[in-house]
């Protein structure tokens, strides 16, 4: 036997240091820089009468849309379908909002960050102090939600499809707490759980119209997080559908005559949305294969793709938010971003929750293409006009993506 007991002591000590460090950097709910805390609970009862949520007509349509930004007033006015006692009691209340990120950081410059911005916007107005917990491991979803439950938060926002099961379970077990699940489509209506979903296929479709119109070689690529997340798959499938539609309907705008779409999905795993190296490598590969437009999506994996494309001098299309602002490195060659207006969607739902009109089931958030910014001059006017037309067509249903995910 080796003699050193002092050595093992040392190892134990260093292990403890590591754990301590990990604990500090890890799951501690970080208080966000928000407005005053004092006003929080005291004014709660005041506004309760304002919204006549109790008179809710049983509107059967669960998927009724909370539409674009700016319709917050409308959202407050909508009749609540199946509003629970909890929701009604929360009317006009200044809600304490807890926020659980999906794998990845709060500042991922993508879906966590945008959703969190919606929470912050609401909290600033309401004068409450929201908190977030960053998830490192898919096994911790339930634990993080429970942390907010234990601390008696009014609304818990969970981000990401992967957290759907944990959120649903928590919502069922805690009917008095409101839940908002971003990217979590609801198959059955749970009254205190609102799923914020987006028609990503439409955004992907628009991205493809732009990409196919801009590609010189008729080869466009996509690099995405795992395809086992429907939202991601919808982007990818919509992208393919858009290219096919262009070939069929707008041949004059497709320079090479036809468009070939190649899509790379990150393998499943805890790092599917936080692997910029992989995203960049796939982009390198796609560019070598002749693709001259790269559409990147899925947390920092997609960011890696977009940045790598721009670094190689290739046009890129971002995702979720207008990445012109979040990825300054990519700005010069960022054509646009296929946006889901997460911040607006989350904000609207929180306003509804605050007014006591939050509905269970699905709410469809707004999607679209971000402005061209620096590439404004590079995109032909004809193509711009077409994009506007297709956007309208997708909205009124005359153009269908045909994506069923």
């Amino acid at each position: 036997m080796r003699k050193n007991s002092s050595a093992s002591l040392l190892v134990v000590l260093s292990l403890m240091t590591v754990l301590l460090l990990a604990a500090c950097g890890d799951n501690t709910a970080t208080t966000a820089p928000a407005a005053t805390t004092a006003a929080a609970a005291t004014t709660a009862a005041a506004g309760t009468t304002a919204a006549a949520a109790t008179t809710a007509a049983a509107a059967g349509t669960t998927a009724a849309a909370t539409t674009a930004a700016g319709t917050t007033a409308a959202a407050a006015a909508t009749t609540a379908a199946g509003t629970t006692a909890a929701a009604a009691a929360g009317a006009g209340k200044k809600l304490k909002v807890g926020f659980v990120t999906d794998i990845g950081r709060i500042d991922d410059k993508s879906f966590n960050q945008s959703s969190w911005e919606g929470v912050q916007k609401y909290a600033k107005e309401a004068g409450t102090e929201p908190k977030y917990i960053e998830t490192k491991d898919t096994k911790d979803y339930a634990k993080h939600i429970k942390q907010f439950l234990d601390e008696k938060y009014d609304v818990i926002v969970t981000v990401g499809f992967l957290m759907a099961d944990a959120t649903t379970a928590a919502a069922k077990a805690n009917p008095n707490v409101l839940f908002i699940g971003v990217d979590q489509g609801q198959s059955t209506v749970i009254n205190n759980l609102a799923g914020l979903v987006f028609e990503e296929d439409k955004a992907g479709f628009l991205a493809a119209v732009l990409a196919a119109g801009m590609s010189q070689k008729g080869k466009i690529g996509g690099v995405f997080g795992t395809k086992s997340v429907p939202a991601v798959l919808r982007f990818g499938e919509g992208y393919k559908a858009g290219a096919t539609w262009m070939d069929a309907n707008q041949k004059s705008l497709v320079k090479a005559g036809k468009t070939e779409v190649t899509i790379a999905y990150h393998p499943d795993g805890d790092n599917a949305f936080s692997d910029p190296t992989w995203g960049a490598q796939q982009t390198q590969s796609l560019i070598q294969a002749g693709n001259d437009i790269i559409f990147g999506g899925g947390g920092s994996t997609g960011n890696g793709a977009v940045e790598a494309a721009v670094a190689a001098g290739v046009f890129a299309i971002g995702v979720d938010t207008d990445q012109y602002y979040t990825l300054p490195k990519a700005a010069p060659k960022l054509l646009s971003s296929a946006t889901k207006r997460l911040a607006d969607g989350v904000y609207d739902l929180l306003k509804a929750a605050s007014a006591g009109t939050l509905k269970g089931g699905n709410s469809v958030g707004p999607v679209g293409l971000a402005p061209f910014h620096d590439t404004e001059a590079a995109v032909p006017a004809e193509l711009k006009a077409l994009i506007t037309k297709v956007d309208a067509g997708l909205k009124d249903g005359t153009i269908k993506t045909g994506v069923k995910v």
Partner: protein
Amino acid sequence: MAQVLVDREEKIDSARSMRQYLRHSRWPLVALGLLLLIFIWRVFFGSNQPLVDIVSVIILTLSFATPITLGALSGTFSERSGVVNIGIEGMMLTGAFFGALVGALTGQVWLGLILAPISGMAIALIHAVLSIYFRVDQIISGTVINIFAFGLTAYLYSLIFTSSRRNADAGILPSLKFNIDAAPFTLGLVSVLAIALIFVGHYILFYTTWGLRTRAVGENPKAADTAGVNVFKVRYINVLISGFLAGLGGTYFSLQVVGYFKEGMTVGSGFIALAAMIFGKWTPLGAWGAALLFGFCQAMDSALQSWYGQIEWLHTFTQALPYVVTIIVLTGLVGRSRPPAAVGVPYSKQ
């Protein structure tokens, strides 16, 4: 005591039968062959730009293999001197972080490239002190390094960048750029360095006095000591070299490909590197060969998407292949791989 011996016998027996089983089932090799076949098929029959396809796969292979190459070389130096280093992953991550940190704070990516290997050496020093001076079990010490590096880099990252919203961009190292038939190719500086270092490493280990001493210490430290070699010094320096190389490997992620740090961004390359080192029989050239094999699997996975799109089974298959190969390699199927005799055994003069 007797019971312990019996247990050990049984363990050896089951390991042996496992190995025999794997040796008789050759499907992993068949799988690799199939992949090569697809490659050849594509290049000669299915492609309108065969040269581009070939060069593309070669360049991707070299790129993807870079961190594995440097990691495996790192392990080779450490283990040849008799110190097991399973902390390569942690050292890489440390290098990736400090490289990016310095790059972001100073705006000089070159300073990052210089500091990353040094930070790798610093963390390797912990491993060296623990395993050489304190004679801690080297596996435990390496594990501590891995956990420590992950926690430390993630914590420091959020401390320095997240809360202050400081710009984390470290810049990107230059790459070799060339065109073939209008297809643009790039090979990063770190990838080029990795290839050069393999040959330098090979030379040092097999054609210099230092290399001879290193190998002697790894095989029989007592004899080396008797012959006047300072065993401790040789081991310390080799572990530091190991840290240097692993730290450099980390810069592939943060300074070559992405341009910033992301927690856990080395995604297990250090462990694959360990497998490559064993596969390469603890020699630099062998380790490189193994690293290239892993790189080739990844490159094919990537290329196949462009060639044939998302054919589900093919895709799953190529993605799984590196790991399957790793398992096969670690169970000792592909040739018998013999570690340095004194590896993992702390040396004491008594």
